[in-house]
């Protein structure tokens, strides 16, 4: 009987790890669809960002109450993984609470800590469900979340609550069995959170208790393995990708726009034609800006997969606040959706899709892009170092430089700058008029 359980566990575990690593590879390939950028300078500063922004969740604390709840859920989930290690080893070896004899009295303390965390995760997730579905916090109920994204968020919270309840029920029945003197259930002493609830179960027979305990054990670990495989299809992937995304975050001042060396060189040759003969010519016609996902950088795509759709960016966006179509969160969701679509097509046919679709227009409209004030509020707010503005500006570059698509007023501004050296139709000779007036 035991050996069958061990075998089943090993099979389940193996399948879960295999499926997860297959999907993870796929996501990695999708991210690498993006063009290359070098983001490896200043490793000291980058590791500091990982510590402060990812581990420390520094930006979450812009709203301390939510930050504390989120920290409970996060810390709970990470630290309870130590307990998962024991559960997995028990599953493989057919043991029960493998670490208990080694740790002695410390074991109950450790499990006690896990239980406190589990209770906090439970409370945190319950409050988050209330905020989403009853209080209806605005940023968690905007229309870009209609359908799957809204369900996704609720599934995650409900699953976490279920997993914690299973873990706590398992511990409670375990203690009841210990009190009954069941030989398989080693005496660990009372656990902190579930200890007081044991009396509810002591009236049940050994058989029933073992059945409940084993069912909880199996559902808990199978639930975790299923959840692991749910992550890559969900916004919840941020629990993994927040870390690399913090490491690769842009370290330069937010106001700096990415340079376009191809245009720089072209203009240089125009202004100094004497350089032209010495410059080696390169036959490629460069693409300007981004029209689709492969034109973006891999960091833009890592951003998209790291987004947990919390909407702090959108809640801070001046365009969105004043009712414009632009939502930085939607920019990220669209980018991920398009990367997934392209990735799926490549997996099927081995080449880039010819579905006639592009990120620009089929996903993100010109109206959205034109509403951006480049104020960097979205970049500032993002707790996991996502930069929606970089994507917006690359798409704008495509519109203007590849399609000459700009509002009439912008075209006038361009020609004014070109002809009068100022965005308005003013005579360059009047530029120092104010000084002449002052000089009297």
């Amino acid at each position, binding site marked *: 009987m035991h050996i069958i359980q061990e075998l089943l566990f090993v099979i389940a575990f193996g399948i879960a790890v295999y499926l997860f690593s297959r999907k993870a590879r796929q996501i990695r390939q999708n991210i690498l669809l993006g063009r290359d950028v070098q983001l490896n300078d200043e490793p000291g500063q980058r590791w500091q960002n990982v510590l402060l922004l990812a581990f420390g969740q520094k930006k979450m604390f812009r709203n301390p109450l939510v930050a504390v709840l989120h920290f409970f859920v996060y810390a709970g989930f990470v630290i309870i993984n130590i307990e998962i290690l024991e559960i997995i080893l028990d599953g493989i070896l057919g043991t029960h609470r493998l670490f208990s004899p080694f740790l002695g009295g410390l074991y109950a303390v450790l499990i006690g800590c896990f239980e406190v965390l589990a209770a906090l995760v439970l409370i945190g997730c319950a409050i988050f469900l209330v905020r989403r579905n009853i209080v209806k916090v605005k940023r968690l109920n905007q229309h870009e979340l209609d359908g799957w994204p809204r369900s996704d968020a609720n599934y995650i919270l409900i699953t976490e609550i279920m997993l914690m309840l299973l873990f706590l029920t398992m511990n409670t029945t375990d203690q009841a069995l210990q009190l009954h003197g069941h030989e398989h259930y080693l005496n660990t002493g009372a656990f902190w959170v579930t200890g007081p609830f044991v009396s509810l179960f002591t009236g049940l027979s050994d058989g029933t208790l073992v059945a409940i305990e084993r069912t909880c054990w199996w559902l808990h670990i199978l639930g975790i393995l299923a959840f692991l495989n749910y992550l890559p299809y969900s916004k919840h992937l941020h629990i993994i990708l927040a870390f690399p995304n913090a490491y690769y975050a842009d370290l330069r*001042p937010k106001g700096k726009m990415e340079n376009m060396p191809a245009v720089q060189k072209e203009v240089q040759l125009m202004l100094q034609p004497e350089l032209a003969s010495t410059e080696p010519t390169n036959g490629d016609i460069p693409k300007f*800006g981004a029209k689709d996902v492969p034109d973006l950088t891999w960091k833009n795509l890592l951003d998209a997969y790291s987004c947990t759709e919390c909407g702090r960016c959108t809640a801070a966006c*001046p365009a969105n606040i004043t009712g414009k*179509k632009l939502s930085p969160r939607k920019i990220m969701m669209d980018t991920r959706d398009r990367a997934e679509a392209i990735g799926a097509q490549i997996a099927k046919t081995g080449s880039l899709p010819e579905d006639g679709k592009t990120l620009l227009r089929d996903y993100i409209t010109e109206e959205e892009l034109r509403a951006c004030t480049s104020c960097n509020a979205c970049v500032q707010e993002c707790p996991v170092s996502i930069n929606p503005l970089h994507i917006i500006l690359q798409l704008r570059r495509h519109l203007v430089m590849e399609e000459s698509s*700009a509002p009439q*007023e912008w075209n006038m*501004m361009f020609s004014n700058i070109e002809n009068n*050296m100022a965005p308005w139709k003013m005579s360059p000779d009047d530029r120092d008029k104010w000084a002449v007036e002052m000089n009297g």
Partner: protein
Amino acid sequence: MQIKTMAEYAASGETPEILFWVGCAGSFDQRAQKITKAFATILDKVGVRFAILGKEESCTGDPARRAGNEFIFQMMAQNNIAVLNGYEVKKIVTACPHCFNTLRNEYPELGGHYEVIHHTTFLQQLIDEGKIRMKEGGSFKGRKITYHDSCYLGRANNIYEAPRKVLEALDAELVEMKRCRSNGLCCGAGGAQMFKEEEKGATRINFERGREAVATGAAVIASNCPFCMTMLTDGVKEQGKEDSVQVLDIAELIAQQIA
């Protein structure tokens, strides 16, 4: 007062301490010209030997670049850099955070390396050095002033304290808007929005910001950017408060109170 150009300095074989980069708004926009004049007056009064480029100055290219037109940006940037490097300019002060951002962050990789400083930081340094002293019993003493963080000084370049320190020197009561510092709400002009109609929406961004600024009860909204100036002035008008609430640049506030 005699405002000299770099060309005039060069002709007389002299070098100014600093180049005052005026920017297009500061040069051509009637309201922003007052900011330019206020700042030039302060520099003159304090005895800073400064020059302007005059007719040799061009748009930095910021609005073109942010609208997506990299060609125009590169043309402007490379021409400006040629002029600046020709005069061996080392230090630049500007009263426009968009020019500041472009000169400071985007010109170096194109070959333009200068120490670039925004006028609010420069004013703070002059106050700290004791070069700017305020009149006794200044007219802003005890009055409520609120400060609007421009995006290109604030989030884009992390400058939040210098402008506030300058305002403290006025002995006014500084009241913050609900969204301030890194949470500050944009005026609506950045990213080349200044040069086009806003997209369709429920309201205008500057109306939203104007409402928030007026709600502080401040008599003065202090700004640091000629574009924010235009936007906030309209925002205050929309609230019907143009008679009781003034929008003034930090340089104008100091120019009024300098001893």
